[in-house]
């Protein structure tokens, strides 16, 4: 391997690693607040890319109907209980979004606007999925939550296949620029990925450290009952965490799709890699998870060069020693009683 290949692999690894950082951080937020391992996050990665591709090619995306359906259900449930304030988030907002999407698909809008629409649709799906799939379980044990995650994953890929078909899509890059640095060409998209990743991580950090809502979420993560007692709405914090997780997924989807074509089921595998990174962080530590994400990205890129068939085996097997180490260092006492 010469320097050029090494640097190219490095660039590749860091770019995908940065995307895994976003996903891992999203998973960690959702997990720490709700104890849910949000496996279907990966499917939302595909959703974002497919939704964008759909709008650009002048079709109203099927994910919009999914969102509208879930909103309608939530609206009906709220109205039955006499909560008329729900009209705004579950009635007016989705109606406006639907109108905007329809107009965008009909008349065409600049790509950034389409991206924004796709981001909004996918981000809004997160809290609704939480509302309908996880909230009714209440304080369930780990296992039912995990099974629901798996089931939800199947539901989402089924819906994606129905709405978008099996074709993979590529979406427009944020920038077509590239920089010749001598040994290799650095693509503008890679730089954008790195930049977006850093901005998002910085913004999340600001949100959690500086804002009241961020602090409330952290309170809910560290002690659910305690947070409830001081007035942090339990359901609301869960939905907020899922909104953040699905936003991270949507951003990741828009960042990857220009580099690797995405189809209805490929997001899941990408999500699993982010999940591997989150586990490396012990499902608790953001910096460790971010480091883990970069390691996974690099490992994938370099093992793809040397033993491309064994790439996924290497990445997933990485988890086992990590898990053993985590279990040994955390002790082994978990009781159902």
């Amino acid at each position, binding site marked *: 391997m010469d320097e050029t290949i090494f640097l190219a692999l490095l660039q590749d690894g860091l770019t995908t690693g940065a995307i895994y950082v976003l996903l891992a951080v999203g998973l960690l937020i959702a997990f720490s607040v709700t104890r849910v*391992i949000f496996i279907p996050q990966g499917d939302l990665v595909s959703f974002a890319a497919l939704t964008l591709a759909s709008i650009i090619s002048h079709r109203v995306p099927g994910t919009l109907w999914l969102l509208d359906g879930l909103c309608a259900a939530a609206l009906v449930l709220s109205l039955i209980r006499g909560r008329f304030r729900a009209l705004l988030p579950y009635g007016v907002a989705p109606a406006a979004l639907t109108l905007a999407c329809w107009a965008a698909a009909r008349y065409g809008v600049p790509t950034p606007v389409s991206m924004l629409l796709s981001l909004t649709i996918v981000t809004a799906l997160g809290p609704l999925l939480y509302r309908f*799939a996880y909230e*009714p*379980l209440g304080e*369930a044990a*780990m*296992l*039912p939550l*995990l*099974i*629901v995650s*798996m*089931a*939800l*994953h*199947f*539901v989402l*890929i*089924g*819906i994606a*296949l*129905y709405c978008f078909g099996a074709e993979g899509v590529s979406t427009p890059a944020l920038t077509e620029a590239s920089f010749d640095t001598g040994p290799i060409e650095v693509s503008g998209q890679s730089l954008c990925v790195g930049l977006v990743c850093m901005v998002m991580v910085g913004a999340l950090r600001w949100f959690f450290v500086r804002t009241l809502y961020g602090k409330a979420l952290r309170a809910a993560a560290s002690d659910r009952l305690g947070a409830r007692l001081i007035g942090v709405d339990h359901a609301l914090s869960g939905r907020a965490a899922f909104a953040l997780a699905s936003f991270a997924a949507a951003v990741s989807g828009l960042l990857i799709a220009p580099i690797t074509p995405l189809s209805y089921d490929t997001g899941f595998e990408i999500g*699993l890699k982010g*999940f*591997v990174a989150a*586990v490396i962080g012990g*499902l608790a530590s953001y910096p460790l998870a971010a480091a883990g994400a970069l390691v996974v990205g690099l490992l994938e890129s370099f093992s793809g060069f040397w033993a491309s*068939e*064994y790439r*996924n*085996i290497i990445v*997933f*097997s990485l*988890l*086992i020693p990590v*898990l*053993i180490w*985590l*279990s*040994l260092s*955390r*002790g*082994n*006492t*978990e*009781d*159902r*009683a």
Partner: protein
Amino acid sequence: MKGARAVVALLACAALPFVLTEYQATLAGFVGIAAIAALGLVLLTGVSGQTSFGHATFLGLAAYTTAWMSRYGGWPPLAGLPVGLAITGGTAFLLGLITSRISGHYLPVATIAWCASFFYLFGVLPGLGGFNGFGEIPPLFPGITRGTAAALIGVVLIAAFLLCANLLTSRTGRAMRALAQSRIMAESLGIDTARLARSTFVLAALLAGVAGWLFAHVQRYVSPAPFGLSASIEYVFMVVIGGASQLAGAVIGAAIVVLLRDQLTELLPRLLGSSGNFETVAFSIAVILLLHYAPRGIAPTLFRGRGRAVPDRRAWALSTRTMPVEGALVLETVGLEKRFGGLVAAGGIGLSVHAGEIVALIGPNGAGKSTTFNLISGALSPNAGSIRLLGNAVEGRGARFIARQGLARTFQHVKLLPESSVLDNIALGAHVRGRAGMVRSMLRLDRSEEAALLHTACIHADRVGLTDVLSDPAGSLPLGRQRLVEIARGLCLDPCVFLLDEPAAGLRLQEKQALADLLRALRDEGMAILLVEHDMDFVMGLADRVAVMDFGQMIAEGRPEQVQDDPVVQEAYLGGVA
């Protein structure tokens, strides 16, 4: 009863080739194969509380082994079974060595990881046909019809079901259920939880291996897809739909998923006018709804527990230990200390309990009494100090070792198997006094020992006054009587030291008096009793000596009346004499 049902099921299997069409027989075969695999998952998930999202991996290992051997090696299919099972069991054992160290939510995560790894491995290993797999695998027997194959699978399923059912109503089965409920409780009863978790895991994998072997020779084609993560999750779905806590749940779940899938694959695309995996979507939504509204699955509504039959009381009772002579020092702690970070939860604890003596440990809430109990019983390791039980140093040896030396305990927050019968809960205490393992239990070679264990449990149930509720689920009793179940369970260990954590809490006055009488009788038999209790009338009338703790320290010790008059104790309880 069970024998009669098994015979009926066998006859039904024998009729399969004559009543089913070829297509129906194929489906029936796949139901049977899935049910065999799901049985393993019930044992693993529903019974022993472990989770696997990688169950299909084990089907894959056996299926690929036998497929390769019979297709390329020229071996008869039957030879593939032992080799396939050896490879499956061996892999499960190695994975179990790793995963039994992995706790809590990391375990399902680990199973996802290895399932993904094996899926890609099946796809890339040379000679296995890549992700397309390979076919032309010989059938089970030359010229076998679909119907005969279905009948054969049915017979294997019935055999597997009976073996598992035998296991569940045995010493090992009880211990497996304890594993799911609370490992701390199980270890305190002398159960080797890590080893049991591992053997359960291997057993589940072997059942999957049998299913995989059948699959390879019935489908006659193997590829990675039926052994990947999605397939594994489908087995979890079967168990959730059918009901994870009962063996019947595996069969019901397998039948529903396989048969409905067959119907829905045709029906849904026609309804929706488009192709896609709609049946999977339908199952997934059904699973989510089930977990919301009927998390225990279908089986419990079909098969209500018939209540446990009370055993034959003519069985021999287990031999009991000779108690230490009265007055002998049985339990002694010196300078026992436990720190949690900067907090000294217990420090400088020096307690001694003699044979034929009741010592009460009292103190305000948060004084460190339960921590002291956990240290002595081995649930926690002390940071400093020593514990001598019958003259042997036992500190740091763990709850299992200490229980086997003759120390029994109860818990402040009752730890029982709420769905198991009172009798089974009590018999769990006799676990260390039996020897029958998994294989003997499955083959029913444990019956005379099991009768003795149950008989012993009955004797102790009588002693604490639970004779009338032996077959009721323990969780249905009021809290006070649940504490009595724990006491009877502890007595089944045949202990020489008994640690009781608030035994009288939740009991009514008459029950308290009965409990006090029981404890006095035990003392008179030579047992050393250490109890934590808040009811002062109960303590002062019962204890021979009282030790008082406050803020992690021992502040007084002596006869009840001495302690009551101690100004330091009064200060601790009442905040000083006004």
